[in-house]
């Protein structure tokens, strides 16, 4: 059986407006899959479909061959699909440690076990000193790391990162790229990276899907995407902008 998170011919409509149209995407284990596209292309809608927050109006979503359409989000997480959000969405009134513990208890651990795992995760992700800080009001990059740590608790099979580099400097984005490589090397999950930072995506993804107006317009390895005229026109505009974005 294929070890992958797959969307097949997925469509989503909101009161007649087509947000996704026959989208097919495959996130294999141990690889980084990129998902790019201009604002409003349907990227987050697709992530919502993959994680149970949005029921597709057509098509199927399967986890290692098993359909997960209609499965509520908390069960999707329990089955091993973790995600982060564009806006962080940390539990602001809880400490950073508690933020990670929540995933532990959500997945069935006792508080003691969850706290131990959370401590280890904070250590692994490089922010153990933040354990007892309030999650609300953390600096942006720390917030992103906490969100990733929370999603990584109990080693999910698939991790969906929704614009993790948004607002980061080049140096911070580079740190994030290193973290993503560590995740793939050590956690060995399948990773779907939704990102506007094209340089980051082209650098670390094994395979990239390009969405535009709810449709997949190109699929392939970074070199192919980089060379695609269609992607340039639909997503990046002029050639000059493309070169700037890639760099």
């Amino acid at each position, binding site marked *: 059986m294929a070890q992958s998170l797959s969307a097949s011919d997925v469509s989503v409509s909101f009161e007649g407006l087509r947000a996704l149209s026959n989208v097919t995407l495959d996130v294999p284990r141990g690889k980084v899959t990129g998902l790019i596209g201009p604002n409003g292309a349907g990227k987050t809608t697709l992530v919502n479909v993959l994680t149970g927050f949005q029921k597709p109006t057509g098509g199927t979503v399967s986890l290692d061959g098993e359909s997960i359409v209609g499965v509520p989000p908390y069960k999707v997480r329990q089955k091993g699909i973790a995600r982060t959000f564009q806006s962080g969405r940390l539990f602001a009134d*809880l400490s950073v440690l508690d933020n990670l513990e929540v995933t532990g208890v959500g997945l069935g651990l006792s508080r003691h076990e969850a706290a131990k795992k959370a401590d280890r995760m904070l250590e692994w992700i490089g922010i153990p000193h933040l354990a007892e800080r*309030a999650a609300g009001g953390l600096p942006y990059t*720390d917030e992103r790391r906490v969100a990733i740590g929370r999603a990584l608790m109990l080693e999910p099979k698939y991790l969906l990162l929704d614009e993790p580099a948004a607002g980061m400097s080049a140096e911070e984005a580079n740190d994030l790229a290193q973290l993503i490589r560590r995740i793939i090397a050590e956690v060995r999950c399948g990773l779907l990276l939704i990102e506007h930072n094209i340089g980051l995506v082209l650098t670390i993804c094994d395979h990239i899907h390009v969405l535009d107006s709810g449709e997949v317009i190109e699929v392939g390895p970074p070199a192919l995407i980089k060379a695609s005229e269609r992607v340039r026109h639909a997503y990046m505009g002029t050639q000059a902008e493309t070169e700037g974005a890639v760099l």
Partner: protein
Amino acid sequence: MADRPSILARTWTTPVILIVILGVLQLAALAVGSGPFNQTIIEIFIRVVLVVGLFVFIGNSGVISFGHIGFTCLGAYMTAWLTMLPAIKKSKLKGLPDIILDNKLAYGWGLLAAVIFAGLAAYAAGKVLMRLSGIAASIATFAVLAVIIQVYSNWDSVTGAQSSVVGIPIVRVVWPYFLCAIAVVLVAYAHQISRSGLALRAARDEATAASASGVNIPRERLIAFTISGGIMGLGGALFAHSVGVVTPDTFYLGLTFITLSMLVVGGMNSLSGAVLGVVILSIIIQLLRWMEKGVDIGGASFALPLGVQEIAIGVVMIVILMYRPSGLTKNRELVWPSNKLSGWGKPKAPADGKTV
């Protein structure tokens, strides 16, 4: 990496401090010993039970419930049915089952039955309601209160309808109320530090992210709703035994407003806030009651107009909401200075500019 102390080891001082505060009230009752003063302390302990009961659900879930006093009504009538003399029941409440009509239990069994009955009712209502969120959930809980009160106000043969049910054994000693208040504080604390309590507070902060973390929000809400319903039932039973008489009207908007006010004033998201809100507002209410009755100053008697206490509670609530929306405790827990824990109540603010 050294093992972090358990959540119990990091937070146990909070319930201890709260129990000490309740203990001071109990000692005051023992020291003063007068009937009216004891009755005031009993009222405070009953309110602690009710407001902590509200906290278990509202404080942890963030869903405002206007219906919990309905479970208080259920508890009050349950203990009345079980502990009144059979002769009184046979003359006034003929519709009760024979096994209840013919028997009389000690009040302790009445309290236990009230907890179970109200808890089961909360579970049944919660199974339907806990899928709702926000204002829809709040209005639905109010509908539950309205249904309970209407049933109890009209089921003549079982509840006496709007007539007072009299003859409930009165418990005048203070310590049973004190012990119940302690028990409720400990139950609320245990729930608060449990997996379910943590998951529920996460859902309160960010429901979407909690779902994405594997939290089954309706289930966690239902657990809290059931526990808090049982506690409210206990509060109702204690109330019934404190005055010896119940009517459905007692358990409606007035009590709903006062208990919610106490929770808001103390700090809705903290157990300490629930207890302190009761103590502080009860003191204000008692002072105003005395002043409504009249105070002699220099031979002249001054009395506030009746109803001032309700107005004062409203004013206090508005002032708190304006200037301290997170309550007197700022939603923090009371902790012993050497046992300060971040992540408890309200954790430390992040260090400025600290990045990784």
